[in-house]
């Protein structure tokens, strides 16, 4: 596997791996790893490093919702133009154009249900091309970014086996 793909795999598994760990895990030297990461960042492949939070275990929990968005396009306005308008709001945690019954899928986050509702009704719905919004509040999260929440499974293997 080439270094870039291997590094992406490892960093997606754990973005806190140090350069020396990444070097050990791939059998390469630290300089090579540092350079490869710098290039991935410069090329815009690596856009950031974030924590995965189980909010149900934290002291306070933001309100999160998935919002379906339908839009009507015209000659002057394409999907990218609409996306550019919506993507800039800090409440929008992710924005994707998707196939199927609606056009955009948004993940929205705010301090309260009222704040999420107001954001949708006052900032998103009034965008001229938006024809419909459907808001689904997140009730429980079981897995985020490939990480399962919960106690995990206990290692019930015998401590020494042949």
């Amino acid at each position, binding site marked *: 596997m080439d270094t870039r793909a291997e590094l992406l*795999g490892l960093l997606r598994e754990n973005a806190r791996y140090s350069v020396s760990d990444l070097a050990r895990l*791939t*059998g390469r030297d630290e300089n090579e790893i540092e350079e490869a990461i710098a290039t991935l960042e410069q090329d815009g492949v690596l856009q950031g490093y974030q924590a995965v939070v189980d909010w149900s275990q934290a002291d306070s929990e933001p309100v999160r919702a998935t919002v379906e968005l339908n839009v009507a396009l015209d000659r002057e306005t394409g999907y990218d133009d609409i996306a550019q308008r919506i993507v800039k709001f800090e409440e929008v945690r992710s924005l994707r154009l998707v196939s199927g019954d609606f056009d955009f899928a948004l993940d929205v986050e705010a301090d309260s249900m009222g704040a999420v509702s107001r954001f949708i009704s006052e900032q998103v719905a009034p965008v001229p091309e938006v024809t419909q919004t459907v808001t689904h509040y997140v009730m429980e999260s079981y897995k985020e970014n490939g990480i399962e929440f919960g106690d995990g499974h206990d290692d019930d293997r*015998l*401590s*020494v086996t042949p």
Partner: protein
Amino acid sequence: MTGPSIAERVRQVPPSGIRRFFELAEEMDDVISLGVGEPDFTAPSRAREAAISSIEQGRTSYTANRGKRELRETIADHIGKWDLTYDPAEEILVTAGASEALDLTFRALVDPGDIVAVAQPSYVSYVPSAIFAGGTVRPVQTKAQDEFVLTPEVLEEADAGDADLLVLCYPNNPTGATMTEAELARVAAFAREHDLTVLSDEIYADLTYAGEHTSIASFEGMKERTVVYNGFSKAYAMTGLRLGYALGPSEVINAMNRVHQYTMLSAPTTPQYAAIEALQSCDASVEAMRSQYDHRRKFVLSRFSEMGIDCFEATGAFYVFPECPWDDAEAFAQALLEEQNVAMVPGTAFGDSGSGHLRVSYATGLEELRTAMNRLERFLE
């Protein structure tokens, strides 16, 4: 009344060398064990679902003695990647783990006094199983300087040419050694020249990190004298489901099946459903596990090298086999366990040629491996 007397062939087999060590480790808290010979992963979800679904559908009766026809056919397809061609009707036997298949082979082929050459260091059950069947074991000591591959030279040294059977296992437990096609070709030539029947345990065939596995049965003139063992425990992380299989010439498989039908009747049914699904749709899960093992392997080898511990680059299974920093590996392993709560298995548990070495399993999460390596470093200071 003196009570039942235990048979001589059982009495002459000492308890597993791992046993004492296991008891020590079990008594302690907060032990990080690098002594585990099974994956830390669980079986792929699809395979588990297939097992559950078979039970829900009431598939709880015996299967054919040889195993479900569909499973044998799926196995026959799967092993094509190693250039192996076996007839599902006559040349494949599904067993309760590869260990059962090995035991069946010894019972089917060994007459009292037959000589069984065993390449060592080796998995702990070959020698006892051969003895239980009445065989005389002739250890063949592979060498650290050869990175523990089997060579005609060490076979000659052990007079293995006179033996009836030769047992080998690559990728190897405990050393992690693999053998290249060229190296295996020399062993195959030796086996043909001396008319040896070869028992090739290839349970780790899917877990190689420097090129594809080669089976000794794939060489010219070898299929007719070789029994190959594989199963679902290692690559598919299904150890507790106890399912393996043997591939061999029909007369050997038929003889093994004769013993199997009277002792086991058929391998457990539920795991057979899991195994079909595993072979048909779990390649990605196996690859994901293999990739993680490979990263951990490199991590551990790097840490050893930073600590000045000599270790050849093992490219298979999930073990590395470093030289022990002390002369006495047993004393070292015990002290490391008692002082730093890290368990490694002394190489002597796997035969004399394992002496001076430690088996270190990397079938353990990376964070635990990191902590274990840090503790080892502290211990060495």
